[in-house]
């Protein structure tokens, strides 16, 4: 099973936007001796980071990331949270400005399960990748792989690599043939093209 860790080199500097309880940064510190910094707004998750000894800054990504310098981190990671931002397009541009390489993962709204639920049930899709009801979802800007890749193109962001899987990490042949139909989650390695 593919993990974000596999794309990160040893002793690098990692910024995790929406770092949650700091698990990823903690693993990276142990496995790759990275120096990490997390950004989070949830008080409970910040507490978990501090308990792990993970440096964490209380900051709302939607309020801007101007306080981070150009190319100041080897990697900027944004795992499963770009769709929950008010201005995902602004954040995406900022991510590639701050990180030499950026790792972004998104839930794929054009996945076949979503399409079938919408088509046959006529209701907003609820699945393990998108577990929330329409009224309580934090996901304000859901998109498909096609949508995301189009936005990257618009901003001159190069997709260096793409990994497709189900929410549990499983991969399949079908995903390779029809990625936008069969993958549930996509993980992208991005760089800003000059």
């Amino acid at each position, binding site marked *: 099973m593919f993990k974000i860790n596999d794309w990160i080199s040893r002793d690098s500097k990692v910024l995790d936007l929406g770092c949650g309880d700091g698990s990823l940064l903690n693993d990276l510190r142990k496995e790759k001796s990275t120096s990490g910094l997390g950004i989070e707004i949830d*008080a409970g998750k910040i507490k978990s980071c*501090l*308990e792990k*000894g993970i440096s964490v800054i209380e900051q709302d990504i939607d309020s801007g990331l101007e306080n981070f310098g150009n190319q100041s981190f080897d990697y900027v990671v944004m795992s499963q949270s770009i769709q929950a931002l008010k201005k995902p397009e602004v954040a995406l541009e900022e991510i590639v400005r701050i990180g030499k390489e950026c790792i972004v993962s998104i839930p794929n709204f054009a996945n076949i399960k979503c399409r079938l639920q919408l088509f046959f049930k006529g209701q907003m899709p609820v699945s393990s990748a998108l577990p929330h009801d329409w009224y309580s979802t934090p996901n304000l800007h859901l998109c498909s792989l096609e949508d995301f890749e189009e936005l990257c193109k618009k901003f001159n962001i190069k997709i260096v690599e793409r990994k497709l899987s189900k929410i549990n990490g499983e991969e399949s042949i079908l995903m390779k043939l029809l990625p936008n139909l069969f993958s549930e989650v996509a993980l992208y390695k991005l760089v800003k093209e000059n």
Partner: protein
Amino acid sequence: MSEDNRLIVEPQKFKHSQSFRLESGESLNGFELIYETYGKLNKEKSNAILICHALSGNHHAAGVYSKEDKKPGWWDELIGPEKAFDTNKYFIVSLNNLGGCHGSTGPGSIDDQTEKEFGANFPIVTVSDWVNSQNLLREELNIEKWLSVAGGSLGGMQALQWAIEFPEKLSKAIIIAAAPKLSTQNIAFNEVARQSIISDPDFTKGDAHPEKGLGLARMLGHITYLSEESMKNKFGRELKKEKIEYGYDVEFEIESYLRYQGANFSKSFNAHTYLLMTKALDYFDPAKKNNGKLSETLSRATCQFLVVSFKSDWRFPSERSKEIVDALIHAEKKVSYLDIDSIQGHDSFLMKNDRYENAINSFLEADV
């Protein structure tokens, strides 16, 4: 916590006999610092924490002087057994700064040369002078390196100065409700406080406790330490008497409270010390020597940082703490930052708050 669990503490004194040169160029012919300690120093001497006090604080940060003592130290909410600064784990040192009026050498002390009180002749001391004198206390206590230096407000500025001036002498800095330098508005408030003291005829006649001037300075200070919401919640527009009397006596509860605080403060605090402390605040600007680039100044630091601000603090608002945080990020230092919901304004840093206590506790606990 039960009453029996309270720390019974006793102040001690450290005497430095050599001449001590101040940032201003003046010198003190030796000095004394009064301090208290809480908890036990471990064998490795690796669990010592220095607490720095704010404008009107002193060495008595925690515990009581006897079982009958009803008034615990100023940070007793946070320092003690199983509290944020857990005295079961850490050895905590808290002192009264140079120029203070609670037992350390200050304007109320006798000047050897004139055999009179220093009074207005006590030289101006700066945050850097304090940190240098605290470093002598560290040596006296045989502590190679503080686990942490911590403080709120002006105390937070001292923790920041420690990280810059003695980077190898601390592992963790805790900087609470502070700023990298005062804003224009902050200096303006301090100037009104100073003028209210200096223009009191009792002060000019030599009274170090001018009730009007020092009381007024304290009243002004108090307003800026509270948030509008907390003041409203506490006092509202409640009247002291049954009805309005159309005069200038105390009528509203808030007036009564401020006058009481002012009068009480002026009895116990030295006006010269108040003037000195406000000047130390005004002059604090560690980035000045790097053309205002704080991240350059902080590049020397090697410790980890915890920066905390409170959303209702308008004396040192969250944005000021963020300036410190951003400079630390640019300088590639390890920093965590919390902006805590609390309605008590600047005074929040003195009070209990789960998030705040947990953060300090976890930050101290985590491996370096």
